[in-house]
């Protein structure tokens, strides 16, 4: 999967998320079929589900929280299952959670199998404005820098305050200020380094050849999504 052209992977990811988001709030059975793409991505991309869930641990609770109040708002009974009433709110809650979960998984598959440079290259190919692509790239770089700085500051603090549990609330203001200032300094150095190596506001990414499989891949998936979305396949 890593060898596929990034444009194909980006298109599949975007089309998948749009398709998933477009399902009706009660279309749970069709939505379950859309799991075929994440399952394929994790198997063929040789990705670890455990590691994937660990990396997405911050965003997944938010996704699960979406629609949690639906059962209280929509009490219209759609059907009885083993004598238990299944309300519209319950179905729409699960649908919303699945939509969020699938979208996060699709984005994870894209990120795990494609480098940021390749994603940005693909974005440029579909004519996303240059400024936006550069901003995405720089944000990606600077997140790393900020993470490193935060780690250094936290380590230095812990080593000199071993008896404390975490960082004392009185120190937060100073530390955050220091963190931002140091991150800005480092970001400036990186930017200077880029300027000194001929950076003129645009990343030059080498063109990649499009192999037949890279064309078949998005076409096949987009067709599958259309078939599932149109309701031609219904397992329930």
């Amino acid at each position, binding site marked *: 999967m890593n060898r596929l052209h990034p444009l194909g992977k980006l298109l599949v990811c975007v089309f998948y998320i749009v398709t998933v988001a477009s399902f009706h709030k009660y279309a749970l059975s069709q939505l379950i079929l859309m799991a075929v793409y994440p399952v394929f991505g994790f198997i063929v991309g040789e990705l670890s589900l455990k590691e994937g869930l660990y990396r997405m641990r911050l965003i997944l609770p938010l996704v699960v929280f979406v629609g949690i109040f639906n059962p209280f708002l929509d009490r219209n009974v759609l059907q009885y299952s083993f004598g238990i009433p299944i309300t519209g709110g319950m179905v729409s809650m699960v649908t919303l959670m699945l939509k969020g979960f699938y979208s996060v998984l699709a984005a994870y598959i894209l990120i795990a199998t494609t*480098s*940021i*440079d390749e994603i940005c290259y693909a974005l440029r190919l579909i004519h996303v404005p240059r400024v936006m692509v550069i901003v995405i790239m720089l944000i990606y*770089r600077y997140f*790393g820098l900020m993470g*490193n700085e935060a780690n250094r500051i936290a380590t230095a603090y812990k080593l000199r305050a071993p008896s404390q549990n975490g960082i004392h609330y009185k120190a937060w203001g100073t530390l955050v200020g220091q963190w931002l200032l140091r991150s800005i300094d*480092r970001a400036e*150095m*990186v930017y*200077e*380094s*880029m*300027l*000194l*190596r*001929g*950076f*003129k506001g645009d990343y*030059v*990414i*080498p*063109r990649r050849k499009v192999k037949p499989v890279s064309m078949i891949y998005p076409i096949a998936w987009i067709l599958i999504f259309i078939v599932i979305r149109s309701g031609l396949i219904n397992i329930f």
Partner: protein
Amino acid sequence: MHTGIHGELLKIEHLSFSYEKGQQVLNDVNFMAHDKESIGIIGANGIGKSTLMKLLVGLYLNYDGVLEVAGHQVNKKNLNHIREHIGYVFQDSEAQLFLSTIEDDVAFGPRNYGLSEEEVEKRVTEALEKVHILELRKKQTYKLSGGEKKLAAIATILAMEPDIIIMDEPSIALDPRNRKNLITILNEISSLKLITSHDLDFIMDTCERTVLLDEGRIIADGATKEILSDRELLEGHGLELPLRLQ
């Protein structure tokens, strides 16, 4: 890019610079440098060594005096030309490496100068071979050791084939083996080299000419052996003899 320019590559005349009014960092500096020279810039902390280097690459433009790199006056209009001639190896190699893998990072400069992919590939391979880390080309930059990062940072500059290479404290944080390796590599590079360092033994091993700065002025400019063996001169300006001469 290597232009094959011979003779005078750097010309500094009556150069003065201050970050803020009244705080003069460089004061009437005069200095010439020629092709293939290797020059050590020494001085105590905070006397303007790094500032001088940054002026040369056009990171600060509000200076007074004459500052020419490869025949181009350092000003906004000429920045692209100047930066094609000059490569700067930062003190902090981490700031220099910002792409995912070493080969991507080394290729960043040549690609920005519009070279073909074949030429970029050739430059990357040659630069990595010169610093003896060709086998690391696919390695993620964040996984490198301090010594490897320094060598990779030098490779990013060598790939641009500059006429002038500026290095800010290149020996800092290197273990003895990496330091020795770096000395060998630097002595193999034929471009004009300007090396700022507090490691005077390193300067002795890599530079035939040394410039001593203090209070924003050039105090001495001459043969490295003479300057670095002058205890009185060094101690009078916040430095000490190299360890091997003590």
